[in-house]
């Protein structure tokens, strides 16, 4: 495993403030029917902690601008910054990133940012990750890092997706030695043995590390999903200071 080159004083950092930096698109790959994986080369990238995100800024020829946040999907040990963007049909930015962007294009980014919704092997565990839809993206970074660091922190992932073909990061999810529970909300194959339907208190009770084991819980996905899950976790006795949330808004895809 190669260690990343960590630059603390690149073009993105001047006087400690964080400026917009042009990143180059190295590759664009379909991740699922709805989601696209973008590999970026960001000059001066300061290195990230799993769970951090960056902001993307698009500028139209008439000066009109749109900004959105995307979690970093790659681990800090990986050579490039990867994003996974799910397309919202009526969205402004995600259709551009998933359908228009080409290898070699430049994209303005600002990051990594967000020192709260982060996990690093030194922070220990047990680790409980709960994702709805593209809310799994920051967890792919955490799982990659946990492996690369040879961490033996017990980890579980509860991941709610519409159907099997919508599973983002399927390779990582299949390969990890963390315990994975996949919940399918819309469509499941006839042979499906796992849980289906909405992630509610009963399902959380059955599949999440119990409060007595004092897990660090991370919940990420569309706002409605995150709020429902966080409320149910508190009901189950998880203390609020051990439950961290990242709401994606209506973006990030329905679960």
């Amino acid at each position, binding site marked *: 495993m190669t260690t990343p080159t960590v630059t603390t004083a690149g073009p993105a950092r001047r*006087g*400690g*403030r*964080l*400026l917009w930096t042009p990143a180059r698109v190295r590759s664009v790959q379909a991740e699922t029917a709805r989601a696209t994986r973008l590999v970026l080369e960001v000059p001066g990238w300061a290195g990230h*902690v799993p769970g*951090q*995100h*960056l*902001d993307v800024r698009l500028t139209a020829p008439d000066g009109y601008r749109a900004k959105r*946040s995307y979690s970093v999907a790659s681990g800090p040990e990986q050579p490039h910054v990867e994003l996974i963007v799910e397309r919202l049909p009526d969205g402004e930015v995600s259709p551009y990133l998933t359908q228009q962007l080409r290898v070699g294009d430049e994209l303005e980014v*600002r*990051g990594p*940012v*967000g*020192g*709260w*919704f*982060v996990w*690093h092997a*030194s*922070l220990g565990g047990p680790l409980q990750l709960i994702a*709805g839809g593209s809310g799994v993206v920051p967890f792919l970074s955490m799982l990659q890092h946990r492996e690369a660091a040879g961490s033996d922190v017990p980890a579980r992932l509860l991941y*709610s997706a519409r159907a099997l073909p919508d599973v983002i990061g399927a390779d990582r999810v299949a390969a990890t030695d963390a315990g994975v529970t996949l919940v399918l*909300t819309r469509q499941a194959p006839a042979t499906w043995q796992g849980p289906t339907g*909405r*992630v509610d208190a009963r399902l959380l009770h059955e599949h999440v590390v119990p409060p007595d084991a004092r897990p660090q819980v991370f919940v990420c996905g*569309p*706002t*409605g*999903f995150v*709020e*429902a899950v966080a*409320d149910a976790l508190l009901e189950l006795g998880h203390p609020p200071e051990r439950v*961290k*949330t*990242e*709401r*994606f*808004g*209506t973006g990030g895809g*329905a*679960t």
Partner: protein
Amino acid sequence: MTTSDMTADGTADEGPESRRLDGNAAAGPLRELFSVDIIAAACTCAHCGGTTALAEHVLYADAPALVLRCPSCTGVVLRYASAGGQARLDLTGARLLVLDLAHDGRPG
């Protein structure tokens, strides 16, 4: 789960509530101004006296400015906007910010 399913369960609706975010999402814009990540700071609310990390506040990002509200009392704690080469920041709702200088969200 679709947002309309959730309406039936009373857990969310398709209204503006479904677009609110965590304070953590304001980390980028605030780094235009601050050289450290103030989003991890513990903030004492000037309205109710409760203390919570700014990252755990509720962020409304569809307004003329970013509006960060207290998770306990919903009072406005921070407002931030930048346009036309100017940044404006209102912290009247934040009585106290306590920042950990040892690490800037970067363990190790």
